[in-house]
Structure formats: structure tokens, C-alpha cells
């Protein structure tokens, strides 16, 4: 799977195996802009990403709690997600995410 970091323009291709969520994948890889402060409790919004393209077979619906949190993150976009709510599944390999630059 691929993270594009808007602030630096860098593209990071990461191996998600061994992790439960994409927040963990990003934190373990020191992806700039992803902190994961609340450990996935959906209280911090510090794992906000834009999903750029979703591979066939990868689904993860937004819960109401996630939508509430996404309303108030910096740089919201139609593809906004909390990475802590995106599970690692076998279909995750083709996923492309963008980390929005801080305003």
C-alpha cells in the first residue's frame, strides 16, 4: 500500500502485514503527519488521511463516530478517513492514501 505525504511530496510504499490498522502501519513507519495519539479511540483525529484509490475487494464503512470526528479535522475531503478505522486485510495492497499537509 502507498502513502503520499503531501507536505514533502514523498511517496512511501509500505508493507502492512503484522498490523491491525493502517494507523499502526503509518505510525510504525514514521509517516509524517500521522500520530495516532488516542490509540484508535477516535478521539484525536491525528490519523486523518485521504483515500485516493481503493482496490477491488477492500471495504470499510464509516461509522457515525468516525463521521463526527472527520467533520472537524483539518483539510477535510470526500475521501477523508481515520486510518485507525481502516483494517489491514488481504485486499489492502493496492490502497493509495494521501496525508494532507498541515495548514
Amino acid at each position, binding site marked *: 500500500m502507498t502513502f503520499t505525504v503531501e507536505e514533502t511530496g514523498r511517496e512511501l510504499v509500505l508493507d502492512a502485514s*503484522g498490523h491491525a490498522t493502517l494507523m499502526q502501519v503509518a*505510525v*510504525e513507519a*514514521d509517516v509524517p503527519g500521522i*500520530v495516532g*495519539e*488516542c*490509540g484508535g*479511540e*477516535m*478521539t*484525536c*483525529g*491525528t490519523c486523518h488521511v485521504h483515500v485516493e484509490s481503493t482496490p477491488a475487494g477492500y471495504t470499510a464503512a464509516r461509522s*457515525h*463516530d468516525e463521521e*463526527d*470526528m472527520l*467533520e*472537524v*479535522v*483539518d483539510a477535510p475531503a470526500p475521501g477523508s478517513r481515520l486510518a485507525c478505522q481502516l483494517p489491514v486485510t488481504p485486499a489492502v495492497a493496492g490502497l493509495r492514501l494521501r496525508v494532507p499537509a*498541515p*495548514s
Partner: protein
Amino acid sequence: MSTHRADVVVVGAGHAGVQLAVALATSAGPRGVLLLGAESGLPYERPPLTKKLLVGSDQPVPVPLRSAAYWDRSPVTLRTGTRVVSVDPDARTVGTDAGETIGYRDLVWATGGRAARCGLPGEDLRGVHSIRDLADLTALRRQLAGGAAARAVVVGGGYVGLEVAAGLRQLGLAVTLVEVAPRLLARVTGTVVSAAFTALHRRRGVDVRLGTAVTRLRADGDRVAGVVLADGTELAADVVVVGVGMRPEVDALLAAGARGDTGGVDVDEQCRTSLPGVLAVGDCARQANPWSATGAAMRVESVHNAGLHAAAAARALTGRLPAGPVPPRFWSTQYGVELRTVGLSAGDDEQVLRGDPATGSFSVAYLRGGRLAALDTVDRPRDFARGQALVAAAWQPTRAELIDPDTDLPRLQPAGTSVT
């Protein structure tokens, strides 16, 4: 013993220390970052100790902040099982419990604290616990695993005491909670939320005793057998958990001459102490707080604050300007009920209730001078999400904007985003 040097030595591998070490990993300088932690094992998340790890498996497995593989490849050198016992600010060295001397250019004190005790006769008996770290939880779980413990007394009705009471109920123990103040959570919230959580715990079968102090613990041999209250009441107990706050771990820094006292080490906006080249972050650091009623210096105990301090210290050490202030936020989970708070409610002059506590989902807005100072939310995630920007902007609501629970709070962009 050999003498080591690092550009940045971080003492304490908890939430703040790890966040800071990671932030400086590649920018500290040629000698890098050395992260020293007193606990053994990988640095882990503290909040789950009194939440899912308390009710989960008998042998609690902590949630690591970073994996072992992460530390293997990180430029940060992590050394666990090492306690710093002294600081020499002139030589710029620290001494460890193994007798080693380590030199630093910059030192960051990130030691959190120890669980406070009441200082009561009998508090060192077997069966008396407090929960600050994994070893504490493991000891409690080990006693409970035997199955012989049926009656518990929890001393203290703050976040930790209440989470422990909830967990012990869920494990099937009979639980009495004793709080000396006239209400629960008195330090952190108003009367409406206190009453709601008292009712929640009573509904779940906790015997909540308010306005009563424990005066001593009764022993059976070297084991605790019960507690005695100020009015003479005796409560039998197989296990006692004392949750009366924490004492910052700052003795070595104070001995080195840093300004502060047993209530914390004083730091400025950039988390610098009064000693050159020494910073302090997280639970042990006392800092002027623009969100409090008086702006007075205080310690804030939360993962969020640990992250803010770590970011502020990392900016200071890499020559960047401080970021703007962000209101503090807190969360607690009891029986699956989420209490989430933004801002500091103490010193409010008006409280407005949104919704009906009897429904289990409500918020309380705390105003100072007509401006939103804090918001407590109970199972109302949208209020919490929107409240952060509203407290940050010191929003001046009308009563109508606040009171109707079916009308959402207005949405402001988060702090730091320009509002036109």
C-alpha cells in the same frame, strides 16, 4: 563504569518520552537520541491498564507504542530497565541506578510519576494495590486470578478509581468505592456529570460512599482484611485499590536545582526548566495553562498533553517557534460509557446542560464570562468533536445555541485554520 554520551537524553519511556524521542530521531545530531526507561519491556499505552487490560486475560499483555521491530531499526537507542537517579547540570551528565554516567547536550525529563498513597496505617499490607504501570496491574490481576478475592474496596473516586471500580464489578467482585469529597470526579468536572457517574456506578452495583475518609486498613496477618472509615464503619475487603492521584517523579531534578517542588517541575511554554539544557514534558511538568480560569501553572495528566509537550520540546530543540496553544482534552471509559472532555471546567460561572442525563447521552457546557471554557460529553461524540474548535475559539454562544440537544453545535474549523 563506561561513560556514554548522546545529543539528547530522554529520561522516561512513557507517552511523552517516546513521542519526543521519535520526533527527534533523525534531527538530534550525530550522537543521536538515547531513551532511558525504568520499566522493563517495550514502552506501552497506559490508558488501557484500567480499561480493557483490567477486564481482559489474567496475564495482561500491554499495547506497545511501537513494535520491537520498530525499535530495532530506529536511530533512537532505547534502553529499558534503567532508572536515572541523579543529574549533574554543570557536567551535563546523568547517573543511572547501575552506576553509569551518561553525558548529554540536551536532557528531557519525561518521568511521569508514582501512584500517590494516602499515608494510612496498613497501606503496605499484601492485597493493597494502586495502578500506575504494568507491574501494578499484573500484581492486581495475579491476586484476582486465584479467585479468592470477592470483596474489593476502591479508595478514591477520580478517573482511575472509577475505572478500577467498573472493571472489578465486571470481573464479578463486590465493590465499595470510598471518596472523601462530597462527589465523584470533583477535581475534573461539575455536579451534573458527577451525579450521572455516581448513578451509573450504583446501577452497576457499586456501593458508593461519598464524603467519607478511610482512616486505616485492617490486617489479617500480613494481608489486608478491610478498611475502617472515619465514622467508624468497617468494610471487609480481600483487595484494596488506592486511586488517589499521582506524585510526579522529580526528586533528582529538584536535587539538581531545577525550579519546582513535589507538585512538579516548572517549565515554560517550550517545556524548558530553569536548568540550562534541561527540559521536562508530560505528567511531571507544571506549566502556565491559558485554558485555566486564572492562567495559573498546573500539571495536566493526559496522553494528549504528553503529545503536546513532546511536540513543544521537539520544536524547541530544533530551533522552531512554539505552536499556538491547544485546549486540553481527556477521556475515560466506564462500563463502555465514554466521558470525553475538552477544556478545563474549574472556575466556570455558568453551566448549560444539553440533553437528559437519564438517557445516558448528554453534554454539559461550562462558560466563563459567557465564553465556552469546557465541554463534558457523555456518549455524545459529535459534541466532543465540534467542541474542540469551539473551546479553542472561546466561542460565545447564545443559550439557544447550546441547550437544544437536537440542534448540533456549530462547526468551526479546527484551531490553526484561518477563519474568514
